[in-house]
C-alpha cells in the first residue's frame, strides 16, 4: 500500500514536471478560478453588507399624542418590543422633543413655540427593526385599534412610510437576487473552465493512457496519478489564488472603508474570519469537480 502510494505520487510529480507548460497552464486556470470565485463572493458579500448598512440606518419614528402620559408610552414601548423582529425601541420624551425643536434653530418654529407658550409636542418612539421588511409587519401591527388613541397621524404617515419601506425592500431584494444570479452564473463558468482544463490536460495524454492499458495497467493504476495531480493542483491553486485574492483585498480594503465606512463594508474582516471555511470549501469543490472531470475524461481512453 505504501509502495503503491509512493509510486502514484512519484508518477504524478514526474508527469507534472515533465509536462511543465501543461502543468503551468492547468494550474493557472484553476488558480484563476479560485481568484474569480473569491472575487464573486466578495462582490456578493459586499453588496449584502451595503444593503444591510442602509437597512440599519432606517428607523420608524412614532409620534405620540401630547396627551399620552409617560406611563402609557412605556406600556407601548413594552408592547412594541414584544413584536417580532424589533431590534430596539427608543423613548424620546416630550421635553426632549421640544428641546430638539428649539435646537433646530428654525425661526418660524421658535416664533410659534413662543406664541403657544407651552410644549405642544408629544413624546416619540424610535423603532429599529432587524431588516427593512420587518417594518412593514410592525406598521401593520401598530395600525390596530388599540394603538390608534396613542399614535398620532397613523393613516397618513404610516402609508408614506410603508410605501417607502416597500420600495426599498423590493430594491434590496432585487439587488440581492441579482448578485446571487451573477455569482451563480460566473461560478458555473468557473466550474466549466476547471472541467475543461482537466479534460484538455488528460486529452493531451490520451495516447499514453492507451499504452498504459496495453501493457497491463489497471484503470485505477492509471487514474491514481491523475487524481494525485489534481489534489496537488487543487491545494496549490487554492493557496496561490487565495493569496492573490487576500493580497488584493488587503490593498483595497482601505479604499472601501473610505468610501462606505469601515463599519459598513468590511470585506477583509469577513474573509479573515471565514478564510478556512471559504477556501476549504473551494478546495473540496475543486477536488470533487476535477475528480469527476478526470474520471470522465480518463474513462474515454480506458476503453482499449
Amino acid at each position, binding site marked *: 500500500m505504501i509502495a503503491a502510494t509512493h509510486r502514484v505520487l512519484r508518477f504524478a510529480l514526474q508527469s507534472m514536471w515533465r509536462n511543465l507548460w501543461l502543468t503551468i497552464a492547468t494550474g493557472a486556470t484553476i488558480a484563476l478560478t479560485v481568484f474569480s470565485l473569491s472575487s464573486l463572493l466578495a462582490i456578493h458579500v459586499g453588496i449584502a453588507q451595503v444593503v444591510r448598512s442602509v437597512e440599519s440606518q432606517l428607523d420608524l419614528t412614532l409620534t405620540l399624542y401630547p396627551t399620552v402620559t409617560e406611563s402609557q408610552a412605556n406600556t407601548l414601548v413594552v408592547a412594541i418590543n414584544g413584536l417580532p423582529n424589533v431590534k430596539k425601541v427608543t423613548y424620546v420624551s416630550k421635553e426632549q422633543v421640544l428641546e430638539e425643536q428649539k435646537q433646530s434653530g428654525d425661526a418660524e418654529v421658535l416664533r410659534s413655540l413662543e406664541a403657544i407658550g407651552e410644549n405642544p409636542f408629544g413624546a416619540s418612539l424610535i423603532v429599529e427593526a432587524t431588516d427593512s421588511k420587518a417594518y412593514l409587519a410592525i406598521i401593520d401591527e401598530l395600525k390596530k385599534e388599540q394603538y390608534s388613541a396613542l399614535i398620532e397621524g397613523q393613516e397618513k404617515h404610516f402609508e408614506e412610510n410603508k410605501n417607502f419601506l416597500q420600495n426599498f425592500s423590493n430594491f434590496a431584494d432585487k439587488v440581492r437576487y441579482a448578485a446571487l444570479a451573477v455569482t451563480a452564473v460566473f461560478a458555473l463558468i468557473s466550474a466549466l473552465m476547471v472541467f475543461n482544463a482537466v479534460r484538455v490536460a488528460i486529452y493531451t495524454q490520451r495516447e499514453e493512457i492507451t499504452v498504459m492499458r496495453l501493457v497491463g*495497467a489497471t484503470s485505477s493504476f492509471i487514474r491514481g496519478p491523475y487524481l494525485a495531480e489534481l489534489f496537488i493542483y487543487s491545494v496549490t491553486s487554492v493557496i496561490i489564488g487565495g493569496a492573490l485574492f487576500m493580497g488584493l483585498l488587503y490593498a483595497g480594503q482601505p479604499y472601501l472603508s473610505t468610501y462606505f465606512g469601515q463599519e459598513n463594508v468590511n470585506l477583509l474582516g469577513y474573509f479573515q474570519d471565514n478564510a478556512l471555511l471559504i477556501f476549504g470549501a473551494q478546495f473540496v469543490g475543486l477536488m470533487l469537480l476535477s475528480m469527476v472531470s478526470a474520471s470522465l475524461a480518463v474513462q474515454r481512453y480506458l476503453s482499449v
Partner: protein
Amino acid sequence: MTSEPKNKQKNQPMIELKGVSKLYGDNITALQSVSFSIVPGELVSVVGRSGAGKSTIVRLLLAEEKVSRGSISVGGWDITNVSRRDVPQLRRQIGTVFQDFKLLPKKTIFENVAFALEVSGEASKIIREVVPQVLQLVGLGNRLHQYPAQLSGGEQQRASIARSLIHRPKLLLADEPTGNLDSINTAEIIDLLKKINDLGTTVVLVTHNRDVVNTLRKRVITLDKGTIISDQAVGRYVL
C-alpha cells in the same frame, strides 16, 4: 505465464482460435470462421495484405475487442468473454510489440520498461535489478536514461521488445514490428525475435514483409479477406 486464471485449462495450445468471426456492424466482416492453434515454443508468421484481418487477430488476443462468434484461448485461458477486470492480468502475460513502438514519450527508456513491472506491483528493488539486464540483452544497456525521442527507430523498437519481455512472457505478439524500420534495423529486430523464440518463448509475428517471412523459414498462416487461405509448417509469403 506468471499467474493461473481460474478458468485456465491445463495442457492446451498457447493460442487456439475456433471458428472465430469478427463483424463490424452488419456489413463489414473482418474475420470469417478462422481456426488455428499455435503450440508453445513455435514462431509463427501471420501474413496477409492490408485489411486481411491480421491486426484484428492481435486485437482479439489482447482483448481489445471481443469475437462475434467462436472462441479464443491464450495459454489455456478462455478469453472469449474475458471481463474488463481480467484484461490487465491477461495483458501482463503477453508480451506485445507494435509497429509504432508505443513507448511513453515522457518516460525514459528505463522507466518505460520498468512501467510494465510497476503496473503489476513488482518491488522497486527487483525493478532496479531486472530492467538494466533486459535492456542490456536488447543492446540498450547504455541508453537507460534517454527518452524515446532521443533514440533511432530500431532502438525504440528494441526498447519496446525489452518492455514486452520484462514479464518473461511465454507468448510474444509482434504486430508489424518492422513496419517503420529500414532493412538493417529490420534484420536486427527479426534476429532478436528469433533469439527470444530460441529461448522458448512462443512468438507470433504479424507482418506483410515478404523478405522477413521468406528468410525465417518457419510456419506461415496466410489470411485473405478475413479467412485463412494457407497454413504451412515451413512456409513462404504466397500472396
